C-alpha cells in the first residue's frame, strides 16, 4: 500500500541492482538481455492487468510491430538505434491508441477478445505485408551505434544499455502505479460506476493506461530486436500474447517485481531446458501447474505474504 517503500524493500532493490550490474560476468549476457526484455514486456502488461484490471490478449501486436519497425528502420533506413527504438515505441503507442480507443469500451472477457481480434488481424498484416518478410522475418539487423558513437555490437555495452532502459522503465512504470493517476486507476478497476459518479471520465484513464502499456510493450519489443537483431512472426503470434499473460500470472499480478520474476523464470526454462529437447514444453507445463498450486498468488505475491507473516509473527512475539 502507498508509495513509501520500507527500508527492507529498498535494500532488496539495491542488492538486485548490484547483482544486475555484475551479472553479465557470471551469466551469459544475451540470456540476461532476453530476460530483461521480457521482464519489461511483462511489467508493461501488468500495468494494464494488475492495476486497471484489463486483461489484454493482444499485447503481442505492440511487442511485435515495434520490433518490426525498429528492425526496418535499423536495417533498411540505417538510422541510429535510438531512433529505431523510438520509432518502435511510437508505432506501438499509436497502435495502442487506435486499438485501445475501440477496445476499452468493453470489459472483462470481451475486452480480452477484442484485443485478441485486433492482434490476430495485425498478425495477418504481418504475414501479408512485404516489409515484414513473412515467416523469415527481418533478420540480420545491425546493432548499430547508439547516438552515433556508442558501439552496441559489444555484448557488454549492449547489456548495460538494456539494463539502463529496463531499470528506468520499471522505475517509471512503478511511478505510474503509485501516482495520483494510478490511484484513480485502481479505483476504476474496483468499481467503475462509483468512479464515474465521482466525476471521473473513466475511459480516458483506461485509454491512457492502455497506451502507456502498449508503448512500453513496444519498447520491450524494440529492445529485443536490438538484442537478437531480428524481428519475426513469433513475436506477433498470439502465443506471445499468451506468454506475457503467463509470465505475469506466474510472478504475481499487481506487484512490482512479480512480472519480471515470472518473465525470468519462463525465459530461463526456455534457455536452460532447451537442451532437454522435446521435454521443454512438458517441463514448462509442469512448472506452470506446480507454481499455480504452490504459489497461489504468484511467486512474489506468495513470498511477500510469507514474509509478512514472519515479520508480524516476530512483531507480536
Amino acid at each position, binding site marked *: 500500500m502507498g508509495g513509501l517503500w520500507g527500508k527492507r524493500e529498498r535494500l532488496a532493490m539495491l542488492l538486485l541492482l548490484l547483482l544486475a550490474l555484475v551479472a553479465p560476468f557470471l551469466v551469459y549476457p544475451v540470456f540476461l538481455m532476453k530476460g530483461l526484455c521480457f521482464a519489461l514486456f511483462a511489467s508493461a502488461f501488468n500495468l494494464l492487468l494488475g492495476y486497471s484490471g484489463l*486483461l489484454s490478449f493482444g499485447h503481442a501486436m505492440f511487442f511485435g510491430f515495434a520490433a518490426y519497425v525498429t528492425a526496418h528502420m535499423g536495417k533498411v533506413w540505417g538510422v541510429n538505434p535510438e531512433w529505431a527504438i523510438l520509432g518502435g515505441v511510437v508505432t506501438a503507442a499509436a497502435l495502442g491508441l487506435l486499438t485501445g480507443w*475501440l477496445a476499452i*469500451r*468493453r470489459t472483462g*472477457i*470481451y475486452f480480452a*477478445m*477484442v484485443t*485478441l*481480434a*485486433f492482434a*490476430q*488481424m495485425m*498478425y*495477418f498484416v504481418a*504475414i*501479408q505485408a512485404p516489409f515484414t518478410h513473412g515467416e523469415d522475418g527481418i533478420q540480420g539487423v545491425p546493432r548499430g551505434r547508439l547516438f552515433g558513437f556508442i558501439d552496441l555490437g559489444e555484448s557488454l555495452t549492449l547489456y548495460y544499455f538494456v539494463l539502463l532502459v529496463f531499470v528506468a522503465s520499471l522505475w517509471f512504470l512503478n511511478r505510474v502505479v503509485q501516482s495520483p493517476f494510478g490511484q484513480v486507476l485502481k479505483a476504476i478497476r474496483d468499481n467503475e460506476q462509483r468512479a464515474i459518479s465521482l466525476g471521473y471520465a473513466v475511459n480516458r484513464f483506461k485509454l491512457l493506461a492502455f497506451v502507456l502499456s502498449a508503448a512500453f510493450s513496444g519498447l520491450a519489443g524494440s529492445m529485443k530486436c536490438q538484442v537478437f537483431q531480428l524481428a519475426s512472426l513469433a513475436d506477433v503470434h*498470439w502465443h506471445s500474447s*499468451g506468454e506475457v*499473460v*503467463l509470465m505475469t*500470472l*506466474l510472478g504475481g*499480478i499487481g506487484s512490482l517485481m512479480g512480472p519480471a520474476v515470472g518473465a525470468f523464470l519462463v525465459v530461463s526454462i526456455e534457455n536452460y531446458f532447451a537442451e532437454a529437447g*522435446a*521435454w521443454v*514444453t*512438458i517441463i*514448462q*507445463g*509442469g*512448472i*506452470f*501447474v506446480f*507454481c*499455480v*498450486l504452490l504459489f*497461489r*498468488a504468484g511467486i512474489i505475491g506468495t513470498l511477500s505474504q510469507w514474509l509478512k507473516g514472519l515479520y508480524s509473527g516476530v512483531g507480536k512475539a
Partner: protein
Amino acid sequence: MIFGVPLQALLGQLLLGLINGAFYAMLSLGLALIFGLLNIINFTHGALYMAGAFAAWLVLTYLGIGYWGALLLAPLAVGLFGMLLERFLLSRLYKLDHLYGLLLTFGLALVIEGGFRQLYGVSGMPYPVPKELQGGWNLGVMYLPIYRGWVVVVSASVCLGTWLLVEKTKLGSYLRAATENRALVQAFGINVPMMVTLTFGFGVALAALAGVLAAPIYSVNPLMGSNLIIVVFAVVVIGGMGSMGGAIITSFALGLVEGLTKLLYPEAASTIIFLVMAVLLLVKPAGLFGKER
C-alpha cells in the same frame, strides 16, 4: 454467378462450411459450458479433443475396439480424466482470481500434448473411416463423403440434446447462478462442487467426442488441438457468453463465413473469424445472443 463464382461451387463450399461448423459446435459447446461454470478459458480443451482422437486410435490398435465402441469409450474415459483434473487441481483455485485457472489449464495442456508427442511422435496415426460410413453421395454440386454427413448429424443431435439439458432444465440456472455466487447457491442446498465436477467432465467429454469424430478425417496427431482453442473460444464469445444456443448457431454460421472466405480470399480464412468478432463486439457488446449484465 455470385461474386464471380459459379452457384454450384458456392453451394458446395457452403455445405463444407456447414460441416466445419459442426466441429466448431461440438467444441464450442463444451468450452462455453466450462467457461460459464468456472469463468476460465479451458486451455486443455484442445488437448483433450486430441486425447479423444487418440483414445479412439489406442482402443483400436491395442484392444481392437472399432469406431463405434470408441464413440462411447473415448468420451467416457476423457470425461473421467477431466473430472479428476477438476477435483484435484482446478478446484484448489476457486478462491483465487479466475486467471490462475488459465495458467493451470495452459500448463496442463502443454503436459498432455507433450506427453502424447513423446509417446507417439507428431506425424500422426492413420485412422480408417468405419466401413458402414465409407463412400459418398454425389449431390450434383459436389461429392459428399457419407462420413461428413454423419458428423453433421451427430453434432446436431448432441448440440440439441445439450441445449435442452442446459436451457430447459434447472441445471442451466444452477450453473449460471453458481458462477456469480457459488457460496449462496450452495447455501440453497445444491452440491455445487459435485455439479461443477460433473459439468466439467461433460464439457470435456464433448471435446473428446469431437476428437473421435475428427479421427477419420484428420490425422490423429498430438498437435491437432493446439491452435484450435483460440478459434473455438472466439466462436463462443461471438455467440454470446452463457448462451448455449448462441454458441451452436454461431458455430454453424461461422463455418459458413469461413467457407466463403476460403473461396474468395483463402489467405484470410483463419483471420476472418477474428474480424467478425472485433466488428461484432464493437456493435453488440455481449455477442450475438448474450445478455448484457
